[in-house]
């Protein structure tokens, strides 16, 4: 009943030009989202400027589903107490933890150790086998801003692919059918 007259009528009424225009505006939305993301990468210097917290290892500061805004400027140094997002070899998902110890050599190479606020031990057990320290190249970004709950949407989308496709289909249909 949903599609038999109402929506199809709308589509039918449009001529070819209008339909193309709608497709174009849909493409505009997608490409502007991509542009914003890539633009943020340039501005923040981080390969993923916005991350979603997936675990409770930083509770009560960050909970699952919270959003973090990262920067990764090479000129500002890593210091103890900072919340860094880092990648470990063999793990797909980056980790958000706090820097606990740091040693810097004369030539500027830094090695540091991290720990989650809610963990009782440091992260050496999470690093790659044999890895004792993190270095700058492991860092994806440093947390600079915080927004609660918003990331739950992406968590649901990842956990329930059907939900993701439903949302995408609804958005696509809305953009194509909707006429201003």
């Amino acid at each position, binding site marked *: 009943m949903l599609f038999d007259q109402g929506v199809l009528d709308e589509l039918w009424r449009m001529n070819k030009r209008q339909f193309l225009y709608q497709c174009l505006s849909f493409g505009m939305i997608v490409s502007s989202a991509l542009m914003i993301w890539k633009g943020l990468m340039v501005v923040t210097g981080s390969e993923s400027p916005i991350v979603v917290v997936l675990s409770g290892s930083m509770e*009560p500061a960050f909970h699952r589903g919270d959003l973090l805004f990262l920067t990764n400027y090479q000129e500002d140094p890593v210091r103890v107490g900072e919340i860094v997002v880092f990648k470990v070899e063999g793990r797909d998902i980056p980790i958000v933890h706090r820097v*606990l110890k*740091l040693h810097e050599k004369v030539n500027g190479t830094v090695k540091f150790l991290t720990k989650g606020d809610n963990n009782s031990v440091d992260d050496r057990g999470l690093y790659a086998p044999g890895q004792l320290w993190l270095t700058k190249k492991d860092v994806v970004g440093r947390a600079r801003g915080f927004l609660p709950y918003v990331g739950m949407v992406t968590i649901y989308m990842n956990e329930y692919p059907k939900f993701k496709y439903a949302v995408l289909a609804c958005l696509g249909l809305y953009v194509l059918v*909707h006429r201003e």
Partner: protein
Amino acid sequence: MISVRPLSIEHVALPPFWNRNCYFHEQFTVHRSPSRTSSNRFLENFVFREELSQKQCETRSIFCSRMHSLANRSNHLVSYTLTVMAIITGACALSTRFLRYERPARVVGRRVELHHIPNFTTDNALNDFAVVNFDVKVDLRGLFNWNVKQLFVYLTAEYATDDNVFNQVVVWDEIIERREDALLDLNDVASEYFFWDDGSGLRNRNVTLYVSWNVIPVAGALLDVASPLTNRFLFPSTYKHVVTK
């Protein structure tokens, strides 16, 4: 007598934000009369112009036809709610953006000992291990406002050795979630984390202790603030305990 003729209820729509989609839609604006007054034109925004058959109404009402449709109402409700929440969150973040979170935190290091023992946390090489007890006195109650979720307070030991020009070791931290808990007065507390040097360069070295805090907001910028007060002292020149391999 002035007779006021009220518009009957089925001809009046909800305020404009409810009906954005419908009334500018060509499907509903039939046969505009050439002699429209401005008030008439204004009313057209609110008046349902076309009589649709019952069947048409039912089928079209699902998507984007009428203001009363479920899709329309939920769409507007959701977008309105999200807009309001985004504005409130932004205002909350902005309201505390320019506050100063610096406070003086008094810190004193006590009972400093050095040991030269195998570092069991890394590769069992002989490293310097420091024992530092400390006093901390700081009143952070004034930092709490509606946009502070928690404070992460930590004590840093900063020093330089021959191997490393810059070293930082966190020896103690505390998570404070309530204003009542934010008055810290610690006396002769043992360090919470191991104080290992990366090598064996702690003897006769200056070390600086200072308290910092990381302000976690409800929404907004994450701030790191260090106390301007520090405590600088010298590590002893001898080991208390030496393990020889």
